[in-house]
């Protein structure tokens, strides 16, 4: 029996209950796991659209004249180079190079940024950012999570639904004209909404940040507008299988404090070429360790595994050679609704990481054959 009274409820909790959602505990929140069927919700996002409540995510506002310089120091990316109304996938690392969290940073104002952290790391990221801000004279770090709701519409019909939604006005410009990884101000019933063309599903889609009190009205407006476009509410279960097919890492699975961005195949987010005004290497937290990791021979590599049988590899299962000798561990795995066979991501020794390599996974005591394949498993047609 878990004590559910201590869990945080989403501002959309009553909507989920009214829709009959199965709720689950996630990072201290009670969130929808599924509304009807995991597979139906997954398929809707791939073919029409899904509506997600992501209000558990952490929103942290970074402001002040030193905001960009602070983020260049605190994060591994080059955020001062992020254009106004752009978005960037990045990470915050520890001094030893281990990943504290993966983040999306929006430059929604010229001199202010919105940092979106995973729910499970929200407090840790907030603490780290506050500590790292101490050396800057003029930067503010403000937790906006309690008053902020986040709703996502994801899927090929997302743009049509956005445009059909009553009360939603693109006052800041046409997001449909923006590239992926952009954000624009808009209004819903006259109140501000930040619309971002970002997501975690492998499909085109949009994320909407707004005041928590306005969230239920926007949620219902989307459902009403989406009814003719195949929009269905989708839970965390579909979100997980969608991001897995899209080869996107999940913190706690592919990423953790003992993993560097390079280990996860995401070395591109580490901007070792960041420079100071005089052209020297720009110091940032984790720099020395990440430089060393860049120069070192990798000890593990993140790969995709395609299951050749029907039993799916799951998080934590051993990866082996066909003869059973251990070569790694599964980080995420599930039957892929889109592909019709099991898929998994795993860390393996680099010698067996080449696509085409035949391996096995110990699935509850029995070896199941798998093959290394390139990530992602699924890429949308453009």
């Amino acid at each position, binding site marked *: *029996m878990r004590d559910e009274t201590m869990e945080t409820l989403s501002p959309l909790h009553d909507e989920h209950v009214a829709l009959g959602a199965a709720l689950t505990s996630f990072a201290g929140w009670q969130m929808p796991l599924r509304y009807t*069927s*995991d597979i139906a919700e997954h398929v809707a996002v791939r073919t029409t659209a899904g509506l997600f409540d992501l209000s558990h995510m952490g929103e942290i506002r970074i402001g002040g004249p030193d905001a960009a310089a602070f983020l260049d120091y605190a994060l591994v990316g080059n955020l001062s180079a992020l254009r106004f109304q752009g978005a960037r996938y990045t990470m915050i690392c520890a001094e030893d190079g281990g990943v504290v969290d993966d983040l999306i940073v929006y430059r929604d104002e010229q001199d202010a940024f919105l940092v979106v952290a995973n729910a499970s790391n929200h407090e840790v990221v907030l603490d780290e950012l506050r500590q790292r801000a101490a050396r800057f004279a003029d930067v503010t770090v403000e937790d906006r999570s309690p008053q902020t709701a986040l709703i996502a519409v994801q899927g090929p019909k997302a743009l049509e639904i956005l445009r059909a939604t009553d009360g939603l006005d693109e006052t800041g410009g046409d997001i449909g004209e923006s590239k992926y990884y952009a954000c624009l101000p808009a209004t819903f019933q006259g109140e501000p909404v930040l619309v971002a063309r970002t997501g975690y599903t492998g499909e085109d889609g949009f994320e909407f940040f707004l005041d928590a009190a306005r969230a239920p009205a926007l949620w219902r407006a989307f459902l009403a507008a989406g009814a003719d476009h195949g929009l269905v509410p989708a839970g965390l279960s579909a979100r997980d299988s969608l991001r897995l097919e899209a080869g996107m890492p999940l913190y706690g699975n592919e990423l953790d404090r003992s993993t560097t961005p390079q280990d996860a195949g995401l070395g591109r987010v580490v901007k070792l070429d960041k420079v100071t005004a005089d052209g020297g290497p720009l110091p940032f937290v984790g720099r020395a360790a990440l430089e060393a990791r860049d120069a070192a021979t990798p000890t593990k590599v993140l790969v995709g595994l395609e299951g050749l049988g029907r*039993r799916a590899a799951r998080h934590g299962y051993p990866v082996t050679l066909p003869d059973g000798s251990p070569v790694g561990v599964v980080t995420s795995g*599930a039957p892929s609704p889109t592909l019709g066979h099991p898929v998994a991501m795993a860390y393996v020794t680099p010698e067996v990481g080449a696509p085409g390599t035949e391996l096995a996974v110990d699935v*509850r005591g029995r070896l199941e054959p798998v093959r290394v394949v390139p990530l992602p498993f699924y890429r949308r047609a453009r």
Partner: protein
Amino acid sequence: MSTDLPIDLHYTVEHEWLQDGSPSTIGITAVAADALGDIVYLELPAVGAELVAGAVVGEIESTKSVSELFSPVSGTVIEINQSAIDDPSVVNSDPYGAGWLLKVDVTSTGPLLTSDEYAAQSAG
């Protein structure tokens, strides 16, 4: 969530149901099917297999998780539900009917619950 339990069945704490007969029929409850989510794969014992009450005899896999199937009885498997193996979604849609799993010639049973007892323990 389906919560209406057929009263003529026996249940186990591991969320199987058993219908007396010659042979008897075994399946999993709606509680178990709902908790798993969309079932995509069933691994069932072969016809002729000897079951031991309380032992793991198969697996039920969904997109989200996997669960072991425990036999509520000892006996011999007479028939397995091939149509459920071919399309496991029937276990979600009709767990007490078309989504049955095994027919077994029962020699003895393990600990069983009435529908009221099962409802009480699975409500927690």
